[in-house]
């Protein structure tokens, strides 16, 4: 399992480095159009060919991956922060706050958040810029995707609350705030990390689904989902080129899941 985890981390890191370095290179501008090579195949100028308006596919894949790898972790971080506030903290405090938080978590878990996301997405102003639309999409993912990690964190912090070292610390007069920040939070870190790696592929896939429907990141900004959407038109003609975005999504998801499973085993 350790080898699998290393492979997964290597895959995710390689993709991240390639997308960050590659997208900064001058030849890979995602907006630049080569009007002489519309829907062209691979060549020395365009390694993976061009799309229907002459934009370099490789450049767009690199920029799309960078966007997902920048915003998805941010969204995962936000959802974990909310999970900590609504799951770990009430779970540690117990009593009415725990019961109230559990009800809110159950509510969040029973709502299919893709519908809520669609609703917010449909109400964005018509003149929203592509980068703002991308940020709002991931922000909403972060705001709506904290239910599962919150439930797991709540169970873990409840177990910690009843653990012997916490009871002893409490008996010694340690305040509740200090208990939470010094004794409980560090013990929740492995769970938080595992949940982070689980949330990452979930958010990448959710964005891909939204962009496939034309409701995710707006053009001309590329995203993994919008690149997959291009498959619809060209898969039958030149599937090998368009599958790169699918491959990037799959590798990212496999990598993240492997890391998450490893963390779960540790826990």
């Amino acid at each position, binding site marked *: 399992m350790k080898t699998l985890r290393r492979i997964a981390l290597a895959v995710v890191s390689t993709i991240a480095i390639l997308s960050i370095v590659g997208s900064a290179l001058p030849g890979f501008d995602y907006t630049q159009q080569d009007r002489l090579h519309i829907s062209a195949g691979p060549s020395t100028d365009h390694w993976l060919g061009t799309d229907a308006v002459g934009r370099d596919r490789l450049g767009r894949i690199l920029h799309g991956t960078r966007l997902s790898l920048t915003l998805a972790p941010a969204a995962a971080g936000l959802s974990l922060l909310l999970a900590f506030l609504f799951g770990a903290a009430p779970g540690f405090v117990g009593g009415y706050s725990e019961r109230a938080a559990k009800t809110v978590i159950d509510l969040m878990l029973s709502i299919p958040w893709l519908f809520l996301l669609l609703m917010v997405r*449909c109400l964005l102003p018509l003149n929203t810029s592509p980068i703002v639309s991308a940020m709002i999409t991931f922000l909403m993912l972060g705001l709506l995707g904290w239910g599962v990690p919150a439930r797991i964190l709540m169970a873990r912090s409840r177990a910690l609350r009843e653990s012997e070292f916490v009871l002893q610390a409490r008996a010694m007069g340690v305040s509740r705030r200090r208990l939470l920040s010094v004794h409980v939070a560090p013990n929740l870190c492995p769970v938080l990390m595992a949940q982070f790696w689980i949330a990452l592929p979930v958010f990448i896939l959710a964005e891909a689904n939204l962009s496939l429907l034309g409701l995710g990141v707006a053009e001309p900004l590329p995203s993994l989902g919008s690149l997959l959407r291009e498959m619809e038109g060209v898969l039958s003609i030149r599937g090998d080129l368009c599958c790169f975005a699918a491959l990037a999504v799959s590798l990212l998801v496999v990598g993240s899941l492997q890391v998450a499973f490893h963390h779960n085993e540790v826990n």
Partner: protein
Amino acid sequence: MSWWNKLAIRILLAALTIAAGGFLSTTLARYAPGFGSDERQLDSRFNQESREAFRLESVAERDVTTYYVKALRRMVHGDFGWSRTLRRPVRELLAERGAVTLHLVSAGLILAWTAAILLVVATWLAGSGVIDIVCATGSGLLLCLPAGGLALLLVVLDGPAYLALALVVLPKTYQYLSGLVQSTAQMPHITTARSKGASASRTLAWHVVPLIRREILALAGATVGMAVGAAIPVEALSGTPGIGQLAWQSTLGRDVPVLTSVSMLVIACTVLGNTGADLLADEPRGTS
């Protein structure tokens, strides 16, 4: 507490969750950055008076509580509003498309569950690690593809839409079921039964399944929500005229009344699916 009291509490909780979910979706819609911006206000074919009327329409919807209470009251009387984009009552649209989605989701769920159960049973009976690795790798790969991507692939390959839905539900169902069976198989009484010569099939049917029955039912409830959620990209991309496609079309057309009703309906389906599964798992004594 008697089973009937539990039933009443669960139904009450389900109703409260549906109402709270509806309120949450309305609140999200109200505070979305573009709330109140109606493209008809930019349409030069409408005169000033009409544009002012459109503006006032959206102003009237600004108070979330009032708007939600009014909408809820209308819904109780069977009035789900009017679709601006499709120019038809939302109730008619939901009735028409609900049947299509029900058929799609049912077929997808049945296929996914049948495949998952067959794979888990085959792995158990064969007792070979190779089948387990093949199944785990296959489900892992399917897990990596977005529902829309699967739907797109099946459109290109001329496959049925319910297959895409089944492929979305199958990997999660298989992985969870397989994990449950494997963890239960390590329990001492199962090991004892096997060592006393009980066959693999008998052990599975008589010793493993009864122990994980509740978890299976809970998973069944959860997969309903999963399938309903996946129905949006699958229906939209495969051109199936169901609730998912309606949600997508109304999103593109910024048709809030339709989206609110669809959200409520979907929340109701998910909550009722979960509640039903919980109730079955919690059945009264003497009936099992």
